[in-house]
């Protein structure tokens, strides 16, 4: 039988973001699949060379749209390593609060977002409404809903407001209550079981071949391969938390792992409030004059954090002038979004293609930059 060419195109209700997959199908089975990135390409790596070191702070959250705070954290860590800046103690703990809240936001959006490919739109509506509560708290702390620009080289931009602890504790209770309802709707639903249980598997050899990190790696290899435990940054070695692992990676295990990780993030935030110092400065002074004309000493460094999709890193090259010489971005979903689709989607059905993008965590702006 002849093969038909189909576009799981950029305009599709089940597609996350602006990304396209071209498939050659025979009946219902995919014979050949090609990814097509590049629709969101803005040329960030060239634009970052034309703005000053502090001027880049307005540009970099826009590289990864669902979770912008990891960009600022990696940039700040790189500059602090090159310029030898010491970050005050209270700033480390506040950074952890912001990073964990961003992780909860992104996990809720993709946990509820399984409604798009499967047709369970109630889950999407509940998930987005719950995410809005967290964006309100972000607005009270940092001033903006989505792009915060709060983590700067040297600390954070401003201290927390006065009643931040009660506010965030109230938010944690709301999340725990409503997450139970969302969990019953998704994880105990026979429709979802029929779609993703024992389907879209990821064997362990494939993980090492592609270079996949994050949830896909931890549920296939059965090891705690999380950058917060293996190479801790910003006081993650002084809080206690578990990292869920498994040895059988099908779609259902990966979705359930997201639910378990949200509970661990709530546990971290509660411990941070007990352990952080009550007073202190939150920002170290980086230059004696104008911050826009500040120069970073020459050198090369690579920094990485654990985002919701895997290892997210920046490779920064500086030559001692006012603007960066070269910054290269390692998007966390580069392996699973490009090579994963070409090699491992063959043999599945058409409706599994968008489920792969949702459960493995493919975020298209960070592939295209």
């Amino acid at each position: 039988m002849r093969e038909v060419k189909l576009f799981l195109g950029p305009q599709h209700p089940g597609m996350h973001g602006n990304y396209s997959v071209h498939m050659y199908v025979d009946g219902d089975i995919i014979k050949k699949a090609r990814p097509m990135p590049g629709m969101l390409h803005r040329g960030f790596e060239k634009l970052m060379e034309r703005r000053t070191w502090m001027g880049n702070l307005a540009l970099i959250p826009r590289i990864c749209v669902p979770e912008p705070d990891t960009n600022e954290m990696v940039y700040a860590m790189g500059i602090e390593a090159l310029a030898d800046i010491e970050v005050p103690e209270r700033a480390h703990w506040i950074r952890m609060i912001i990073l964990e809240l961003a992780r909860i936001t992104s996990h809720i959006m993709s946990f509820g977002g399984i409604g798009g490919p499967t047709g369970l739109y109630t889950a999407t509506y509940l998930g987005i409404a719950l995410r809005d509560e967290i964006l309100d708290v972000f607005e009270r702390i940092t001033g903006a809903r989505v792009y915060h620009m709060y983590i700067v080289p040297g600390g954070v931009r401003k201290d927390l407001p006065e009643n931040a602890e009660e506010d965030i504790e109230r938010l944690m209770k709301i999340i725990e209550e409503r997450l139970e309802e969302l969990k019953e709707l998704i994880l105990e639903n026979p429709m979802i079981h029929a779609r993703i249980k024992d389907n879209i598997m990821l064997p362990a050899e494939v993980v090492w071949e592609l270079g996949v990190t994050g949830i896909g790696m931890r549920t296939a290899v059965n090891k705690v391969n999380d950058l917060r435990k293996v190479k801790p940054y910003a006081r993650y070695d002084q809080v206690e938390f578990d990292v869920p692992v498994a040895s059988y990676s099908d779609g259902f295990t990966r979705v359930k792992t997201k639910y378990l990780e949200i509970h661990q993030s709530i546990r971290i935030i509660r411990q941070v409030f007990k352990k952080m110092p009550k007073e202190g400065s939150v920002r170290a002074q980086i230059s004696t004059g104008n911050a826009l004309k500040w120069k970073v000493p020459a050198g090369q460094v690579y920094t990485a954090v654990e985002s919701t999709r895997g290892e997210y890193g920046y490779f920064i090259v500086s030559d001692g002038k006012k603007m960066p010489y070269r910054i290269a971005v390692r998007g966390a979903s580069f392996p699973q979004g490009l090579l994963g689709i070409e090699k491992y989607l063959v043999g599945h059905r058409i409706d599994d293609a968008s489920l792969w993008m949702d459960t493995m965590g493919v975020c298209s702006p960070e592939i295209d930059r």
Partner: protein
Amino acid sequence: MNSMNKIIDYLKETYEIKSVKSPMDMQFHFETEKKLVHSILGDLKSKGFKQLSLITAVDWIEENEFQLTYILFNWDNGIHAILNTRLDRDNPKFTTILPIFPGAEYYERDVHEFFGIEFKGNEKSFKPLFLEMWDELPPLRKDFDPQAFSDKTFPKMEYTTQFLTDVGGVNNEGS
């Protein structure tokens, strides 16, 4: 730190690596020659550095060279190993590392498209991936000016200024 020093000493004895630096904890950068890259990568892979994180390049236009960078990671002890090598800027050619790391296919396509470095053995890297119908210089080289290209291809909005002559007693010429 102990395991990092052991690996650095082993590499210094077996191959001739130069300028070893460590700007952050648990990370070391070193530079080597073109012909030793494949053997060093295979050796590091057998010692636990099984994940290829990134392949990228830097354009040093004053020295007339490209720097090609490979970043590897070891999950057992948390060390990043970063390998640099230099290529000639007028004729940048290199061999692919697909037999060692199969995941390098799309990273090499990315570097080819933005810098023009050719990878022999990776046939798909000559097809465009992010850009469509592009026949100018590769964009990330230092002699490509993005502002001039943007003004030429995409016209901008024109603003006119008209000063009100009677407001607040200020008298200006309109344009």
